[in-house]
């Protein structure tokens, strides 16, 4: 792989041990994936932020580093809200370790925004090269925004953030972004994010790691978010196209003759929507947009919850929509920031959780040890208030 003089000096250790290690990571990944060079990135999002996932050895490694990021960098959700974790039922020992992880990232110059939706914090442009980690953020950046990122691991995203570059391979290269399989959806797609999550849940299993293109549907951005997040969870989808809707499908014409076709049937979608009792309800996987927060607030207005109902979003979105937060919390529901239902130990105590997300539906059983039920946002509110 080609390295310029500055990169070579970093690799030789002239700029300290941490930068040397980070360059070694980028060079090794470049070798593994056959990259010819490094390219500059405009931003990074680092996973491995919850103490629940990285544990004490991940923390020890972060604490051993001594450098600062050189591009705007944010974190994936952590294991608790940074403020008010006591009210969220987090034990003190976990909170102490989680605070140490956050402090380690702060020392590295990472902006302490902990979200899987970094695209709401900073405008991300078509064609930007990024090093993002969280699977739903990656698929959104690539598909909905037309930015370019591979699905990075925590250390490789951090390495890219500290060096300001990433190896040029995979989805950074335009030729590698063409659709490989066509998905047909049977029947009415419906207006609900829960429905799009269910479609994505099924589609992801069918396409695996291929790049799909959908035809004949017109989802909005929040629906695209739900669709992509679910496909990234059940498949390894990091990019999808929707004919006439997503940016690259409008810039390029993608011939689909000769591609494999798979169908998501109405029966398959209906089969996911089981009507069973649940102990708690959680929405906001990925974190709610302002529009989604508004929808939840309108659904909850004047009602009272009868079981725990958590709404997850980025701290920045909550702070800018305090009116919606207050409507939601007046019902007894809680708006929780910085964390999510998958990475927080808080959700482990429930035996069954209802979600409006195909992604959460895939992860809740393994990560929280709970039975998951999927429904539309309205059905989630119904379940929490009946």
């Amino acid at each position: 792989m080609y390295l310029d003089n500055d990169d070579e000096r970093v690799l030789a250790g002239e700029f300290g041990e941490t930068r040397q290690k980070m360059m070694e990571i980028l060079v090794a990944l470049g070798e593994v994936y056959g990259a010819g060079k490094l390219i500059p990135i405009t931003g990074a999002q680092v996973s491995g932020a919850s103490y629940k996932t990285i544990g004490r050895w991940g923390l020890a490694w972060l604490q051993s580093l001594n450098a600062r990021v050189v591009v705007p960098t944010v974190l994936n959700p952590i294991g608790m809200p940074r403020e008010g974790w006591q009210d969220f039922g987090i034990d003190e020992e976990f909170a102490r370790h989680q605070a140490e992880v956050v402090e380690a990232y702060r020392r590295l110059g990472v902006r302490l925004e902990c979200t899987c939706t970094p695209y709401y914090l900073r405008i991300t442009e078509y064609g930007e090269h990024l090093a993002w980690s969280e699977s739903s953020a990656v698929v959104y950046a690539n598909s909905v925004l037309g930015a370019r990122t591979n699905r990075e691991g925590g250390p490789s995203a951090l390495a890219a953030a500290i060096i300001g570059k990433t190896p040029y391979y995979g989805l950074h290269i335009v030729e590698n972004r063409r659709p490989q399989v066509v998905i047909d959806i049977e029947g009415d797609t419906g207006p609900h994010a829960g429905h799009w999550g269910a479609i994505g849940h099924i589609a992801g299993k069918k396409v695996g790691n291929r790049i799909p293109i959908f035809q004949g549907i017109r989802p909005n951005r929040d629906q695209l978010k739900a669709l992509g997040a679910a496909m990234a969870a059940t498949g390894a989808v990091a990019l999808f196209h929707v004919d006439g809707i997503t940016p690259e499908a409008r810039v390029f014409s993608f011939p689909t003759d000769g591609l494999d076709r798979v169908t998501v049937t109405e029966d398959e979608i209906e089969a996911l929507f089981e009507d069973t009792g649940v102990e708690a309800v959680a929405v906001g996987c990925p974190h709610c947009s302002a529009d989604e927060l508004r929808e939840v607030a309108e659904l909850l207005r004047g009602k009272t919850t009868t079981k725990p109902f958590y709404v997850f979003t980025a701290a920045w979105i909550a702070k800018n929509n305090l009116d919606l937060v207050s409507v939601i919390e007046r019902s007894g529901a809680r708006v929780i920031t910085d964390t999510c239902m998958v990475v927080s130990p808080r959700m482990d105590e429930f035996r069954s959780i209802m979600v409006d997300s195909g992604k959460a539906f895939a992860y809740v059983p393994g990560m929280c040890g709970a039975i998951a039920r999927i429904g539309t946002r309205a059905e989630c509110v119904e379940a929490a208030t009946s």
Partner: protein
Amino acid sequence: MQGRGISRGRGTGELLVSPEPISFLSGVDPETGVVVEHDHPLEGQSVTGKVLVFPYGKGSTVGSYVIYALKQNGVAPAAIINQEAEPIIAVGAIIAGIPMVDRLPPEFYKLSPGRKVTVNGDTGEVCLDGETG
């Protein structure tokens, strides 16, 4: 024998060979270096001080931190050899400072387990003990 250097440094030890991939997260005990994955060909064996040979990594990316933990606890392998490196093991070896090489020629895999070798992660070379390189 010439392979591809993935993680720098030199390590010498006896070959410990797994025909199956290894998941470090939940597959190897970070405190003792013993393989604990149920029904794994190396179950019950220690990777400590060995030149650990396996096809490639599998499982969670958190496995990289387990490799780091093995090194911090003084129970890491002396070196790692993969058929084909992938990010979990490559990143783990680099952050832990464990020499790692991949893509060795087929004759390497005819060596008997227990044979002592030296792995040079800078050059990608693997030498039988007693030879120079």
